[in-house]
């Protein structure tokens, strides 16, 4: 029973290791997008809270608790978002794409090129203004298996897209 695997253990040590791949962090202007997003969301919450304070008398007694909660959540969000920005990194190896992300939990997703279904390129309003784009890689796997790499310079995103599309076509050509 054990034998088939012991064969492979030797192999596994010689296999290329994904954790050795050098990951490229995403573009630093993406941090601007992160900041603006936080500002917009918390700005809206602040406005809603202000209106609430103006119209609902009972809230006045609880202003300290509400303000404290707001500040704590804001700080937490900033910390999480900044760590998450620093954690986002990707690498394109010969046979697969690696993407790392997350703040509280770090996830590393790896998609072999021969399992890529299609590639999409997105540009948000903010991102376009900053000359950024994101690339989404789809597989046939269940939800959660697709990766979106944000904060790529537009030329870079297009290059990546071409690379992936080329790999897919190569793959299909090989099959036929």
């Amino acid at each position, binding site marked *: *029973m*054990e034998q*088939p*695997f012991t*064969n*492979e253990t030797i*192999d*596994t040590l010689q*296999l*290329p*290791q*994904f*954790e050795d791949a050098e990951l490229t962090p995403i573009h630093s202007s993406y941090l601007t997008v992160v900041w603006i997003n936080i500002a917009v969301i918390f700005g809206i919450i602040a406005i809603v809270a202000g209106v609430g304070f103006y119209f609902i008398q009972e809230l006045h007694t609880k202003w300290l608790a509400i303000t404290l909660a707001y500040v704590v959540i804001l700080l937490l969000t900033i910390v999480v978002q900044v760590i998450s920005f620093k954690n986002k990194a990707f690498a394109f190896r010969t*046979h*697969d794409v690696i993407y790392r992300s*997350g*703040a*509280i*939990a*770090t*996830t*590393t*997703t*790896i*998609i*072999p*090129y*021969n*399992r890529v*279904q299609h590639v999409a390129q997105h540009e948000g309003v903010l991102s376009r203004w900053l000359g950024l784009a994101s690339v989404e890689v789809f*597989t*046939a*796997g*269940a939800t*959660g*298996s*697709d*990766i979106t790499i944000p904060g790529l310079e537009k030329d870079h995103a297009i290059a990546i897209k071409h690379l992936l599309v080329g790999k897919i076509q190569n793959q299909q050509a090989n*099959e036929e």
Partner: protein
Amino acid sequence: MKSDFSQPQRQSLIGIVVMFGDALQGSVRAFLPILLITVVQGKTNAAYLWGSGALILVLTLVIGYLNYLNFSFFIDEDSAEFVVRKGILKKTRIGIPLGKIQQVNINQSLLQKIVGVHALEVDTAGSNKKEVTIKAISHEHALILKDRLLQGTDRVGEEGYDNEIVPAQKEQHAFIKISLLSLLKTGITSNYVRSFGILLAFFISTLQHIDDYLKFTGINDDLVDEYVNTDVLLRFVSFIIGAIIFLTLMVNLVRTVIRYYNFRVTKQQNSLLLSHGLISTRNTIIRPGKVQIVTVGRNYFQKKFNINDVKVRQASDLDADKEQKKSAIEIPGCSNAEKDKLLEFLLDKMPERGFKVKPNFRKMIFESFKFLLIPVGLFFLFAKYAVPEAMDFIIFVPIYAVFVGILIYFAFRNSRLFITPDFIVKQSGAWDIDNDFIAPHKIQALKLTQFFWQKGSDVGIVNLYTAGGTVSFGLSNFTQLKKLVNYWLYQVESTEKNWM
């Protein structure tokens, strides 16, 4: 009628009944809300209601008949198409190139069973919904038409499989047949949790009603309390528990038998055809190439009874999210020998268990936190600040804690990953122990997850994504998981095999 499908032809004459039935169903669905509203408002008189009911019925019959008259099908040999014409006012002609036909299913609903006809569904690669359904066709006719339609498929090449026409007789030879006895065994040994939950909810709400009733009618609480002394209460509770257990068993038994009665697995060319059902017969096709995950599950009783529950997950059509759940096909009550036969056919070879990976004991801590600490904490918070009456149920907290604690312990003990070059086997479950079998080349993507506090203890979770679902394992030694991920990546990237 001859078995010549080159001329346009109608469905079986008796099929008019089925058309009536279908049209009737349609009109009932359309008019029932209106009818209910009028009845509830109670302003219209009975004669008017009956009159409109009769009118609708007559109209329905006419529509059913016209539907029958206007429905015809044939195989156009010149353009190699299967053509269906239908529609009373809006005429539709659907032509399906024979080469595009993916599968042909023969089904039978209750009504169709009564009048002795079958439905024939033609499924194409183009979309996820059934393209064409012939609602009434005799069985032998259906079989011949099916063979004729699938011949076209073979020409275009299911990996160059021999193009032989399967004669009708051959269908009778079953690969696996699940006996009624096995179904009964499955019925009384599975799905405890679900049925138990449903029945418990039912009993609690009934008790609540009785309580409300007593209060409403003003029966003196003290009197009731006096009457209902501990002895009676104990007997009552044990009666209820007994009744719930009995009903759970009965409900499971009836459900299993109705759903899976006369379960037959037939080998057809390169795929398996499943057919089952007491009231309506269902047919499903399993193609080994499309199979992504095979799960074999059984609990302690099922082990003693020598039965297994086999679930097969096939790759869903790319744009069919809804179908994804449906695509878990269940084969209940297989004996060990039958299970092995199935596994060998679906996975090409018998999977071995191989190298064993165990979870880290922190898995139990993590799960206790998730399923014990947080729910119990929420309960106390809820009881303290929102609904003080909830404290009456405090007796259930230790019961819950012990129950969940036992489940977590056994789930931990059973959680294993077995690796061989050809298969990944994940064993999991506390009571129902499942074994998921995956061939490495079916992997679409791999994901490793680690929370920041898990870095020090070097544990984490791995997710394996396939087109038929996701398999997740952990918490386990992260260094080892990384090694495995590298190994699987190597396997996926170096394989010539396609995932579908």
